[in-house]
């Protein structure tokens, strides 16, 4: 399991390929990769740039927990999360999540779980600067209803 937070520009597929080299060759049948990029719109306003705040230490700890939960729940060989913080512009990749498994269903389920619960629990805060020069903190993330329902089912 690899988790890290960086202020550097993120090259998501390079991170995935570098990490894959550390895995035993020929044992995984598939990897699912999610790359979250910064969009140039949110709730109708045009976003010029974005600054992502985080809580060093707590952020990494909670991403690691989410990855561990995914590895406990599904038959996953390894997971990778790299999250960018600081200032970025539209189209910049912000986060990459990858989950390797022998069977693709485990890769899909684990990758989706990680990005959803990372977004729900890891302390990051987006601050958007609009093209009109307004600065505002994003108040809530968009939901993935598929996973919310799933969670309700699990805890019911």
């Amino acid at each position, binding site marked *: 399991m690899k988790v890290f937070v960086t202020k550097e520009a993120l090259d998501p597929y390079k991170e995935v390929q570098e990490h894959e080299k550390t895995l035993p060759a020929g044992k995984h049948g598939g990897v699912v990769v999610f790359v979250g990029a910064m969009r140039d719109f949110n709730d109708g306003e045009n976003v010029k740039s974005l600054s992502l705040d985080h809580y060093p230490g707590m952020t990494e700890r909670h991403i690691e927990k989410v990855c561990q939960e995914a590895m406990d729940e599904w038959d996953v060989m390894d997971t990778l999360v790299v999250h960018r913080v600081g200032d970025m512009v539209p189209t910049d990749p912000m986060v990459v999540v990858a989950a390797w498994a022998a069977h693709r269903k485990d890769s899909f389920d684990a990758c989706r779980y990680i990005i959803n619960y990372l977004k729900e629990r890891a302390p*990051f805060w987006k601050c958007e600067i609009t093209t009109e020069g307004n600065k505002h*903190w994003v108040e809530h993330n968009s939901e993935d209803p598929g996973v919310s329902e799933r969670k309700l089912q699990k805890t019911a």
Partner: protein
Amino acid sequence: MDIKVRYFASLRDRMGRSEDQVSFDSENVTVADLWGKVSDEPIAEKILVAVNMEYTDTSHQLKNGDEVAFFPPVTGG
């Protein structure tokens, strides 16, 4: 009892500072007591609390050296 307090994102802007060092004579102090010492306003319902980087709530009993963080809902990823 010494507590380090940290604020993040919009709450840091509203507090006008990113951290406080708070001392209590009593040993019987909750997160709610701590908030009363750093702010005149009631704590907003949506504000999250972490003690030593683990999520908790305002009834959490503090001990010497704890790091307490207050912040708005998270919006990463």
